[in-house]
């Protein structure tokens, strides 16, 4: 199961290569625009500072969501309560990540990176 659209990822690589070729004056502007038009990709990858800010804010939301989940399970007598809690939370983050990728097409946007690691952890 792949989260990201393979065609979009391939088109991104092609667009990046075309940008480099255009910057080095290897292809004309007409060819460059033609390549971009034929290989459109709608992946959302913001600037480095925005990525950092989005990552920090996602970390805040993830931290407090985990805290809320811990509060809800506080006082549970089951020995495996912690395992169940963390599994549920991890699964929730995974579902949110999938929805974000499908709807907002986030790719290395900070939000998806933090959610991915949170789900793994």
């Amino acid at each position, binding site marked *: 199961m792949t989260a990201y659209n393979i065609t979009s990822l391939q088109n991104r690589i092609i667009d990046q290569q075309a940008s480099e070729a255009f910057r080095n004056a290897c292809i004309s502007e007409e060819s460059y625009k033609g390549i971009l038009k034929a290989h459109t990709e709608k992946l959302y990858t913001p*600037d480095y500072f925005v990525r950092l800010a989005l990552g920090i804010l996602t970390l805040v939301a993830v931290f407090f969501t985990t805290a809320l989940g811990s509060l809800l399970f506080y006082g549970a007598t089951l020995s495996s309560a912690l395992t169940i809690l963390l599994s549920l939370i991890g699964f929730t983050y995974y579902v949110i990540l999938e929805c974000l990728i499908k709807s907002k097409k986030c790719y290395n946007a900070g939000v998806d990176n933090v959610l991915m690691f949170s789900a793994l952890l």
Partner: protein
Amino acid sequence: MDKIIFQKLLHEKLDTPSEFEKVVSQELEPRSVHWDLRTLLYLGIVLLTTAFGILIYKNIESISHDVIIITIGILCAGCFWYCFKNAQKYSHKKINSSNIWFDYILLLGCLLLLTFIGYLQFEYNVFGNKWGLATFIPMMLLFMAAYYFDHLGVLSLAIVNLAAWVGITVIPLQILQSNDFGSSNLIYSGLVLGAFLLSTSFASDYYKIKRHFCFTYKNFGSHILLISLAAATFNFKLFYLLWFSVLFTVCFFLYRNALKERSFYFLVFSILYAYIGLCYVVVRLLFSFVGGAVVYFGIFYFIFSGIGLIVLLIHLNKMLKSHDGV
């Protein structure tokens, strides 16, 4: 550049055979190491001055102070002599260096100048008890050098010295540890300094005097001002709402300016500083209530405010990007 991708594009008739040949030949051309060399040169200057300091420190008993001070003085004078000899005529606009060594020798000269004056004060007490003078004089000299020789690195050194003269450490990794933001004197000093640097940035831009210095002034000024305002909000318990409103106003002003200049950097941190202040005010207000529900309100506030800001930043980023052309 990947030859296979361009072969595919050639097959799809999206580029021409001559363009494909250019891409292939580009891959065989030598790569520029200009920026690698420049980085190594800057690193070299910093390591040289550090090594100099360590050498003096370790051999302080065997080398006389007079010899050390004369050596540093001669080296510093030599660097400035070279810079004056090779400097371009002063202009309000950006001046390019006359050769590749100029910037590095100027930086070395300025670092040695700071060492020279600091050593004079420490060993010979030249300025007596007037410690302010020991930072004021190098600061003025650095500002003059930055403007006359048009060097952003020296300008940054000058601003750091200005902050030191005011009593604040503005080195990025130490700004929160080395300053005692519990002291109201330091907070007020930071506010004045931050406002002064920001005003200098806008004045430079308005009067078109070294406009390329604007970013450096604005960067230092905004961070110092916003950190001081945040510290004022946290420390002045009686009027924290008033300080928060000032913080919010300054953040809003920087936000509008960032949108106008299309600067993601200032946009992001103006929003983050305002968010930090808002979080503090909300938590403080929640603590004034009693009850278990307060904790849940707090948690829900952080979750939803975090999500709200994420949506806002994504929207602003897309809005700014949509105006960019090819």
